[in-house]
């Protein structure tokens, strides 16, 4: 067969065109291989991760939080179970019928239950919806009995925080809450999963890392419709570590009882190592509201309370220390040789500085007195005559030595550093010039001077133990749920203050006279047979002056703050206490009574003190044989 098509001229041209197309396809082929190489070899791991992510759903099983215990191992904060009724829609038989049943069993509105379910209509089959929260035990048993009629419905057990002593110590323990989306972004919460509970304040916050535990995981492989494929892999959660505090439960309870209807704070501490024995801030609140989901009403009540229940006044509230600050003045006077303990100085009812007149709190003061009397009777004019010859930076120096003006470093969040004025600092912070008169006010703990209760107890402990400034602390060890010691916390000496022994002795003697002297300001704090030392303080919180100060006629908010800080016994102190009563009806002397009761209780515990015979007779404890008492 021969035809025109066999002519080579035509055919060569057409084959050239075929070659050209082949070339184009070769290039495309190379592009394809390059692209596959890019996807699978260069970026393979990235896409592998994306594919696994596509297919795996992870549900977190929250770990139970660790407990918070007293120094003797008594549980103060643990977890209890909250029971919810939940439903897995995919497993329900006739959802509407069962919802009606649930509604009638627990007296709920069907329409409300239906709405909850309807909202989650497209929930995947491995996930469930919570219908009713915080089921009572009675309702729990009702559900269990009727379980057969409710396929797909089940009881979901959720650990919630339980505060065994309610309001007591609420600010110290702190409260927990659902982690927020902002917190989730923070690096320190990298181990926290959405819908986890975390500590928001107090120890719950400070030791969150330990208390939290390790969340478990439920891994499910799902297809693109959200249906479960294959096995569910469960990794059980690991409970958080238990926190052993230094708190003495008996003292804590007593302190809270004594302060319950007042606004203020109490700290009891071992002055020889900084262990906090009790810490109370009042008024308080019940942190359980936060773990069960606080209602707006409760929240408003707490937030709008002008006595700030959420605030831990023991460490966060910084205010004028009043006369309790006089140990700084005494120390400064002694160290700068302006005074000696025994040298008598004239102290009148007023002190004149130029045109200004500074008053003594007791207008009847008019004699030469030594340091002991000055402390015993808290004579302001004695200290004015020291202050007038000192520079404010000298007072600040000794205040700083005793730990004022700086956070103590206690293991609780949001501690207030207080404020110790110097010329520079006052100008920087308040944009005000320094007047000599402010130096005089400063030495009696007024003007710009501001301290927290915990700073006061830290400083008085240092005086009590002869110059060792310890960091106060509240957690002594952290133990894992299996009993392994995770962390042992030892007391930390901040500094050894080099004080002349005779000076320390003199100040301590003065503090002894405050409680035990004839004219002491805290004589109602006396403890039989115990050398209880301390100092009262009254801090004016307003500049307004009432012609006659009588708390009964003054609005609560304008009343002075009352302080008492002390330790016992004088020579080998076992306990230090600070009491702050804000806007108190009675002043420092009354605070001393609170302190006395705490000290008595502690020393009784230590076997160093026994209640008086008279008191013991009133004791209704009939279990003990009476001959024990008669031996005293």
């Amino acid at each position: 067969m021969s035809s025109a098509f066999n002519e080579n001229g035509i055919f060569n041209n057409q084959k050239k065109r075929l070659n050209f197309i082949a070339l184009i396809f070769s290039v495309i082929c190379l592009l394809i291989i390059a692209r596959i190489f890019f996807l699978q070899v260069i970026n393979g791991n990235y896409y592998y991760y994306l594919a696994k992510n596509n297919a795996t759903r992870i549900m977190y099983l929250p770990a139970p939080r660790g407990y918070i215990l007293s120094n003797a191992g008594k549980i103060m904060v643990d977890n209890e179970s909250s029971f919810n009724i939940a439903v897995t829609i995919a497993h329900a038989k006739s959802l509407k019928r069962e919802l009606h049943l649930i509604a009638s069993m627990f007296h709920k509105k069907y329409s409300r239950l239906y709405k909850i379910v309807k909202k989650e209509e497209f929930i995947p089959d491995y996930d469930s919806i919570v219908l009713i929260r915080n089921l009572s035990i009675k309702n729990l048993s009702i559900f269990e009995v009727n379980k057969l009629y409710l396929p797909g419905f089940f009881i979901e057990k959720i650990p919630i925080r339980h505060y065994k002593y309610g309001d007591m110590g609420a600010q110290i323990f702190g409260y927990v809450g659902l982690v927020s989306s902002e917190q989730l972004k923070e690096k320190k919460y990298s181990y926290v999963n959405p819908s986890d509970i975390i500590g928001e304040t107090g120890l719950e916050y400070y030791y969150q890392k330990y208390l939290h535990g390790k969340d478990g995981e439920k891994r499910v492989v799902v297809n693109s419709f959200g249906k479960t494929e294959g096995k569910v892999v469960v990794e059980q959660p690991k409970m958080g570590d238990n926190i052993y505090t230094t708190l003495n439960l008996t003292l804590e309870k007593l302190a809270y009882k004594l302060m319950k209807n007042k606004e203020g704070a109490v700290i009891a501490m071992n002055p020889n190592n900084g262990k906090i024995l009790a810490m109370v801030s009042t008024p308080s609140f019940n942190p359980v509201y936060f773990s069960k989901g606080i209602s707006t009403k409760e929240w408003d009540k707490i937030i709008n309370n002008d006595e700030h229940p959420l605030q831990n006044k023991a460490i966060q509230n910084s205010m004028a220390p009043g006369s309790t600050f006089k140990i700084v003045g005494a120390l400064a006077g002694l160290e700068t040789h302006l005074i000696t303990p025994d040298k008598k100085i004239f102290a009148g009812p007023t002190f004149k500085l130029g045109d200004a007149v500074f008053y003594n709190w007791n207008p009847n003061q008019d004699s030469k007195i030594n340091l002991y009397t000055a402390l015993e009777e808290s004579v302001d004019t004695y200290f004015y005559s020291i202050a007038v010859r000192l520079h404010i930076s000298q007072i600040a120096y000794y205040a700083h030595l005793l730990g004022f003006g700086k956070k103590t470093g206690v293991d609780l969040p949001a501690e207030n550093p207080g404020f110790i004025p110097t010329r520079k600092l006052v100008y920087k912070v308040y944009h005000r010039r320094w007047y000599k008169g402010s130096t005089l006010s400063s030495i009696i703990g007024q003007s710009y001077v501001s301290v927290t209760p915990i700073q006061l107890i830290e400083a008085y402990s240092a005086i009590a133990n002869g110059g060792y400034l310890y960091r106060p602390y509240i957690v002594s060890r952290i133990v894992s749920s299996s009993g392994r010691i995770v962390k042992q916390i030892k007391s930390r000496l901040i500094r050894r203050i080099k004080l002349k022994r005779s000076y320390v002795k003199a100040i301590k003697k003065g503090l002894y006279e405050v409680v035990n002297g004839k004219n002491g300001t805290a004589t109602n704090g006396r403890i039989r047979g115990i050398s209880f030392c301390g100092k009262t303080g009254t801090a004016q919180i307003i500049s307004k002056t009432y012609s006659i100060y009588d708390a009964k006629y003054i609005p609560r908010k304008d009343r002075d703050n009352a302080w008492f800080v002390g330790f016992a016994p004088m020579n080998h102190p076992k306990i230090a206490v600070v009491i702050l009563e804000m806007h108190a009806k009675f002043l420092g002397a009354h605070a001393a009574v609170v302190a006395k009761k705490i000290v008595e209780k502690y020393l009784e515990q230590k076997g160093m003190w026994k209640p008086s015979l008279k008191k013991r007779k009133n004791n209704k404890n009939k279990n003990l044989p009476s001959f024990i008492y008669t031996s005293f």
Partner: protein
Amino acid sequence: MKLSDNIKNFDFILFFTVIIIAFLGIVNLLGSLSLNHHELLNSYVMKQIIWFGISFFVMFAIISIDYNTLIDIAYYIYGIVLILIIIVLIKGKISHGASRWISLGLFTIQPSELMKIALILALAKYFTNAKKKYYKLTDLMIPFLIIIIPVLLIAKEPDLGTSLIVFFVGCIIVYLAGIKRVSMAIALFFVMVVLPVIWGHLKTYQKSRILIFLHPAKASLGAGYNIIQSEIAVGAGRILGDGFRRGSQSVLNFLPAKQTDFIFSTYAQQFGFIGSIILIGLYFILIIRGFKIVYNTKRLPAFLLGSGALFIITLHTVINIAMAIGLLPVVGVPLPFFSYGGTSLIVDISAVAILLNISMRRYKYQSG
């Protein structure tokens, strides 16, 4: 010419390459099944095996008829397929928003797919009869109609993928047949002018597919989801692959059209870069053999028909893979011998059969 000569000239390499690819295709289809699909007989795999049986029957039927005879009856075949397309358009079965199928009881066929073969036969016949060295635009009115009528009808179904393949294959044959360069330039210019008009007539989903191809990340949950899931599947295979039936993207149905348009992604996740290269290598052997057959033929009808068959397979392969890896927008084009689907399998097998047919009879006309 004796039968024994035909067997002697049979291209066994081409044939067995197809067999190997088909075998891999069945394995891959098995690997694509969801984990809870245990009813194997009802599955795609059994149907596809039956389709292979049918298509090999078709293949031997085509091989046994001289390709010249096929070209002789080309217009009738073309006419019948065109009528079938019109029937589909008029009362097609609605499926996936498209009317493409004619039901034949147990199976359905897609006339638009068959048009690919009908078209190359018809064009081969036209240019064989025209006997010109070069063609001006005015000479090309009839081939233009032969191409454009089915292209428009198929696009109307709507089946953009098939329509484009028919169009490209037609153009390639016209180009190879000898269109003048000037005429080609004019035609290209005309296409440029018409493109915006075509864009205006596209369905919304077709437009969005093209737009998404340009910005896939913008619509990861919308239509761009397809491209992204496909790329994830391919990439996740890494070098060695996740293993047979371990391609999570297809097993867990994240990959849409995992047995048809995105069958390559299903394969790539299971068998990795090594597997992908092996598969592409097999297609490369197939196409090179086809190219050799076409290149060596001494007759224009064989050359044009063979080229048409070759480019049906080539375009299918290249467009399907390029689409799966995000190099081209998503259009419904099957991967030859791999994608699930009877009609497309028959079309690709027919194309191979045409190449084998030409190869077998290459000496018949040389000596004659």
